[in-house]
């Protein structure tokens, strides 16, 4: 069993903040097939199309038949730890300050031997389930997990290097006026976040759900309006050094296409709230988060964007809205590169229409804010960076994989 994590003490302001170091991030192009799998929390290896051989490490030819048709496929993640070691000295600065570190040779049921990180409860001779994760450098590594869940397994020190678990972390939810922000606050509190800062613009204006929100014990309301650069700067000045996970819940869902709208007023609002809002948050909270990527148990871990899945392919009925979401997606990729230096992840949650008043006329299936919040907590616990939540989002993800042009036509009605 895993030693449960202790709630971190208040930080001594005189102590130097440990600078974030990264494990080596160089990978071959083919090895990024593992990164793609890890980004979505899948366990994929190359499987030869011609002879069915499963191979690892990543190669550009099948070592069984020399075919070059070796795409990545989901494979059975079961295996057995054949040998383990505890590394006590390392030439690498990142691992050197994290010694001792356990690794092992895992013989996979699907064939290859995989030298992997070992969860503390994955012992030599025992059955394990392999998972691919993103390490602090943003690249895939495998960690062998115990076959069956063990107590406090999420608190394992090696595993926690690979995840963004909200437990004992401080979360900023940027907009608590909407249902998603409120569901997110509840979910983060249930996930043992130590503080949940919730941004409320114009706090003198009452809003539905306010009483329940304020009743959550670890919630602290902060006056945040992400359309106001000054407001974002002020809040960041107060709390940026205590924000370990930032969840941007600001939303602006309006129907209407490109040509069918009159004027740019709504488009301006969309871009101001969504795109410029993201930029304001990134500029004022990002640098501090990046500097705090190795700051102990509650190191900065993740910047979370809630995006419409139509960021990936425009939905003309919500055409300008989709375009604003696409801008956010593009910005998130840049932000991901910028935060990587601190080992801080950017998590994009792709969702279909929410079951809120703004999608009132859209037929089901629709996603409840509570389901989106739960999925966000799950994604943080896994440490993934792209999550497709609900039936619509997963459907669009699958159709994009098969034939993007068909999807474009089909969404156009």
């Amino acid at each position, binding site marked *: 069993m895993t030693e449960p994590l202790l709630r971190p003490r208040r930080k001594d302001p005189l102590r130097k903040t440990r600078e974030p170091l990264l494990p080596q991030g160089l990978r*071959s192009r083919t090895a990024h097939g593992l990164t793609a799998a890890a980004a979505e929390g899948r366990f994929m290896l190359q499987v030869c199309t011609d002879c069915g051989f499963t191979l*690892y490490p990543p190669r550009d030819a099948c070592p069984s038949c020399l075919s070059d048709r070796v795409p990545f496929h989901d494979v059975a993640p079961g295996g057995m730890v*054949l*040998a383990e*070691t505890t*590394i*006590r000295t*390392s030439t690498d600065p990142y691992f050197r300050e994290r010694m001792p570190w356990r690794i092992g040779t895992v013989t996979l049921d699907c064939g290859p031997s995989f030298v992997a990180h070992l969860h503390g409860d994955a012992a030599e001779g025992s059955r394990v389930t392999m998972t691919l994760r993103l390490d602090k450098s943003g690249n895939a590594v495998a960690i062998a997990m115990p076959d069956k869940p063990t107590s406090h397994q999420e608190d394992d020190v090696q595993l926690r290097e690979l995840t963004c678990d909200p437990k004992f972390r401080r979360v900023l939810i940027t907009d608590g006026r909407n249902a998603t922000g409120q569901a997110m606050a509840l979910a983060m509190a249930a996930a043992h976040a130590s503080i949940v800062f919730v941004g409320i613009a114009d706090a003198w204006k009452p809003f539905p759900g306010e009483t329940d929100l304020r009743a959550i014990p670890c919630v602290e309301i902060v006056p945040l309006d992400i359309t106001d650069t000054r407001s974002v700067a002020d809040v960041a000045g107060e709390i940026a050094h205590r924000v370990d996970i930032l969840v941007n819940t600001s939303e602006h869902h309006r129907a209407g296409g490109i040509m069918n709208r009159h004027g740019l007023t709504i488009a301006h609002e969309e871009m101001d709230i969504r795109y410029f809002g993201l930029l304001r948050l990134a500029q004022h909270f990002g640098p501090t988060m990046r500097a705090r990527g190795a700051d102990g148990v509650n190191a900065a871990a993740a910047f979370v964007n809630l995006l419409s899945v139509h960021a990936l392919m425009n939905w003309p009925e919500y055409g300008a809205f989709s375009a604003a979401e696409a801008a956010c997606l593009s910005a998130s990729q840049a932000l991901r590169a910028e935060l990587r230096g601190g080992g801080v992840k950017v998590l994009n949650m792709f969702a279909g229409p929410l079951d809120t008043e703004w999608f009132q006329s859209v037929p089901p299936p629709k996603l409840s804010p509570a389901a989106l919040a739960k999925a966000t907590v799950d994604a943080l616990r896994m440490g993934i960076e792209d999550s497709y939540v609900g039936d619509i989002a997963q459907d669009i993800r699958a159709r994009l994989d098969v034939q993007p042009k068909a999807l474009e036509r089909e969404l156009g009605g």
Partner: protein
Amino acid sequence: MKRRGYEGVAVCAPISVPYRRYSVDSAHWWIGRALHALTQRTGLKPADIDGLSVSSFTLAPDTAVGLTQHLGLSPRWLDHVPMGGASGGVALRRAARAVQAGDADFVACVAADTNHVDSFRKTLSSFSRFAQDAVYPYGSGGPNASFALITRHYMNRTGATREDFGRICVAQRANAQRYDGALMQKSLTLDDYMRARAIADPIHLFDCVMPCAGAEAFLVCREEDAQAMKLPFVRVLSTIERHNAYQNDPIQFRGGWAQDRDDFWSMAGIAPGDVDFLQTYDDYPVIVMMQIEDLGFCAKGEAPVFVRDHSLTTDGDFPHNTSGGQLSVGQAGAAGGYLGMVEAIRQLTDEAGATTVPNARVGLVSGFGMINYDRGLASSAVLLARS
């Protein structure tokens, strides 16, 4: 087809350039020193060296070709053997064939590496594509961690204990105390060995070689030329080489020697009992045990018993790594793959001085190299005999 022997080939002029823990000099400098010593020893002029075989990890951005201009050589036969610990045997067997065929008359075989502060870390992180993709991101323990897994599995499977590995290390240290070139000559007891700090369990400090800078070299030529130069030489009885053997073993438990040893002994026409000393590649003692087994000195899995029952010092009943091996001399990169070869040539030409194995007539030199992902891929072995 029956393999042709190495009749008429002479191996001579063993050269070791004294090792240093760190060196501000380049691999080029170390290779230059080794070749200079070789010309001094043989009387050959640089222009006479018409064959060159080079093994080095730290020549970048140069290649063996660039090295010829750097050193002012003009060989008509040039080889680069990037096989780490298997380099010595592989370089020798290629050079021997070149000389036998008349493609070259005098092949200088040289292995050298420098060791700058921090060059070891840089070598590890970019050693191979698989190392970059699938080894270094996992704790960056280097070969210590990889061989820890192999050692652990070997212990589980054979019942080998740390003491068994310790016997190998302690005996080699005793040998090193007679070899001036060894960087580690402080006496080592089994107690010292057992009490050493853990590096990557079950690997402890004295299971590990120390990276250093150094160079080794020898000359391959025709017997009549060696005689004309009055150079004592050794003959080559047989050689083997294998890469990526037993690739379906889930973890390394044997090396390529096991696959090729019947060929090896039959080519030489002798048996393991005829060997007077053994030079193994000792990057870790578990690999020594695998070589003892896979080359046929005992059955698979019985090397732990074998090392308990034999004395491995130069004056023992199974002299092994007579100059102290890399575990005591130091691992000078690719030169580690030449260490046993050069020492064996010294033994069989009466140049071994204080490490001399009395009346040695036949020696076996075994090589092992290139842990690409989870196991060493290259193996080589050579049987040498007094001329």
